[in-house]
């Protein structure tokens, strides 16, 4: 079978700045941030006490009490985003051939927040929650929840490469649909704030006490966030035949390892360069075609200048003329779901001709001398966007979306 062109036909989002794709996009381009004080757990005693929480959230707003009994917070986010994405794609009533639908997700800490609550009760020797609470522990649980809820019997997989998980998961879905191994892929991921990650990034002194400031000279680190993003992928011909709305086409993706350090990025961005170049190669385009970059842009002192350096290596003298943004300043770093949320923002930018801003900018950093869309959304039609996601372990992923031609 010849490779098929793969398009995105449905989007679903839940994040601190919006409970659906429309609210998310409106608040994103309005320059709102979800980063601030939070109450999911008590941050007293931590050096940093802010995060981008999905506030006032209750699973019962979406599902029955019985349905949510064994679901983690991340599972709930994921199911909500999947429901929206399927509805957006016009597939809410099911699939003709559910065995041809893949569910490929990404996760980092996933639903571990629920497990933590159980673990604390065990540690304190309290007679606490029912052990079925532990069912949300396995990282593959959300893929099963989505598959079982919608009766999808195609392949299921969960990728866990920390913060690059969902870009690789979208790439996997792209592979399977392009090569005819599946007719649809439900792909993306979900992540909730957790004490494990919040304390971990605090102990590593990787968090900024203020809302994160990607590419700013005064940046001190990241802000954690939570949320879910889901996408529906399908072959272009089939989407056309069923009259589905098509947001964008996936052209290619690439992954690479830094092989440098378990937490720090390669100082020259070697792995980042490789993943971007592999994506461009698979896309069958030249660097000149990329006119927008949705950056990993964590706002850590190390990431932003290294990503800048890597972008310069890949795009040469054009690098300073390509608009770059990091939506982590709006929704925090959502770890496992950071990739798909960045990708959804990029796809909506292609669609609307508006580039979302990188907030909280005050002072230019000479080591981050890219054309960053600082503080305000920019109206600019773009055709092809590169999305980056880099992770602990030096696990890098990049993917390219384009407007439909």
């Amino acid at each position, binding site marked *: 079978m010849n490779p098929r062109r793969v398009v995105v036909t449905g989007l679903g989002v839940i994040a601190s700045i919006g409970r659906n794709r429309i609210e998310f996009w409106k608040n994103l381009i309005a320059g709102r941030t979800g980063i601030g004080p939070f109450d999911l757990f008590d941050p007293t005693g931590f050096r940093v006490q802010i995060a981008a929480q999905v506030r006032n959230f209750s699973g019962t707003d979406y599902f029955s009490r019985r349905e949510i009994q064994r679901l983690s917070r991340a599972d709930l986010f994921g199911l909500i985003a999947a429901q929206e994405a399927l509805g957006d794609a016009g597939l809410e009533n099911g699939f003709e051939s559910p065995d041809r639908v893949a569910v490929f997700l990404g996760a980092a800490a996933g639903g571990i927040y629920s497990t933590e609550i159980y673990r604390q009760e065990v540690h304190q020797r309290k007679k606490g929650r029912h052990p079925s609470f532990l069912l949300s522990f*396995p990282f593959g649980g959300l*893929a099963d929840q989505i598959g079982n809820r919608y009766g999808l*019997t195609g392949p*299921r997989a969960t990728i866990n490469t*920390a913060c690059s998980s969902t870009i690789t998961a979208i790439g996997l879905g792209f592979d399977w649909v392009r090569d005819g191994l599946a007719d649809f892929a439900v792909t993306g991921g979900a992540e909730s704030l957790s004490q494990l990650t919040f304390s971990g990034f605090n102990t590593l002194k990787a968090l900024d006490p203020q809302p994160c400031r990607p590419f700013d000279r005064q940046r001190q680190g990241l802000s954690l966030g939570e949320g879910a993003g889901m996408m529906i992928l399908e072959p272009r011909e089939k989407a056309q035949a069923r009259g589905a709305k098509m947001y964008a086409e996936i052209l290619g993706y690439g992954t*690479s390892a830094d092989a440098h350090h*378990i937490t720090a990025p390669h100082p020259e961005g070697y792995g980042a360069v490789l993943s971007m170049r592999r994506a461009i190669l698979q896309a069958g385009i030249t660097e000149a075609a990329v006119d927008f970059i949705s950056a990993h842009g964590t706002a850590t002192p190390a990431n932003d200048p290294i990503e800048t350096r890597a972008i310069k290596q890949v795009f040469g003298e054009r690098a300073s003329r390509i608009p770059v943004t990091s939506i982590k300043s709006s929704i925090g770093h959502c770890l496992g779901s950071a990739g798909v949320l960045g990708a959804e923002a990029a796809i909506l930018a292609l669609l609307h001709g508006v580039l979302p801003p990188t907030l909280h900018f005050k002072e230019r950093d000479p080591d981050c001398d890219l054309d960053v869309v600082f503080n305000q959304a920019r109206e600019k039609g773009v055709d092809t966007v590169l999305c980056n996601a880099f992770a602990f372990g030096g696990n890098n992923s990049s993917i390219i979306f384009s407007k439909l031609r």
Partner: protein
Amino acid sequence: MNGLASTGIVVTGIGIIGSLGIGRETFWKNFLAGQSGIKPIQEFDPLESKIHFGGEVEGFRPKDYLSPLVYRKMGRASRLAVVASLEALQDAGLEINDLNRDRIGVFAGTGYGNSGLTDEYFVSFMEGGPQGANPLLFADTVPNTAGSHISLYHRLRGPITTFCQNLISAELALIYACRQLQAGSAEAILVVGVDELSPIIMHAFSVLKGLNSSINPILGGGLVLGEGACVLVLERREQALYRRAPIYGEVAAFALNSGVTRAGHFEKEGRAMKMVIQECLVKGGDRRRTPDLISLSADFSGELDPLEFRVLREVFEYDWSGIALSPLKYFAGEYAGMGALRLAILLLAIRDQMIPPTVNPDQLESGTPWDRRYLPARPGEINQGLLTGFTFGGGNACLAVQRV
């Protein structure tokens, strides 16, 4: 199995650490001898769990293989994985240099990664508060660190990924590796399937009533947890032939699907399980072909084992008696990333033309002690092997391998 198709992907190196031994040949020899890796746990005190036995790797000393500077910050799963990769690469004779390190990838399959270290980190936080959490432990809490440490140790910069899909995590890594090699995205990929036994994992499976209660397991009484790491070196056949690498066997075909289940359970009727095997056989070129040896998913589970035996009997009704069924998990315990080890055992069986210990399901009665009622290892012609991968939650995988 006639008229075979092929993926063109071969296995050229194997590294094994498991409850039946450290090192490929030791593990294989002990398995052939019918030894059991299921023993009282020595490495930690399974405090909160009522179960005090499992398929533990005994006597594993990372300092025998790695510098303390390298392994001191790693969790046990990462250590097992890196040490297994040393053996696999040496076995494959694959020299890594600046010309090929960007083209060699690492794909991992693990259920829970460094679960012991992750729990240790969380306990340090619970006991010490925000200032007491140990930052040195945090980095290895993400499940992708086992694969990442392999890439770090050997400085491999090819494609990298980690799958965490319950009991088919390593099968997914193997299948994705085959596809990436077919697409030319890498010259070789190290596939690692790894998990560790830890107090928190023992506790979780124990309170969910998923574990067998007897060190002499009861059939259908629940699984026996194990641990280990297996690394396979996968590459395209032409490359392996070009560099005159030893070839254990070829991946003939693979398939993936899923069944609709309740959380934590297996598919009731086994319809999708049956389909995934049939699809794998069709892709392999002949639906009515019969593998010589099947590596079973069976793990003493009351749900899975009878279902798997029934599914296999239905699929191979035309030649059921001619197939040898190998239940490795009955001997070594089970871990989520075990698919790589099970594939390695199929390949070693093909290499040595030895059928490892097998079971006759007609003699296995649920609810009774297993009493190690197996048919001992014996010489036999093995040209094709099949691996079933079924997991709670609904995912299914199947891989076929063949002699080259």
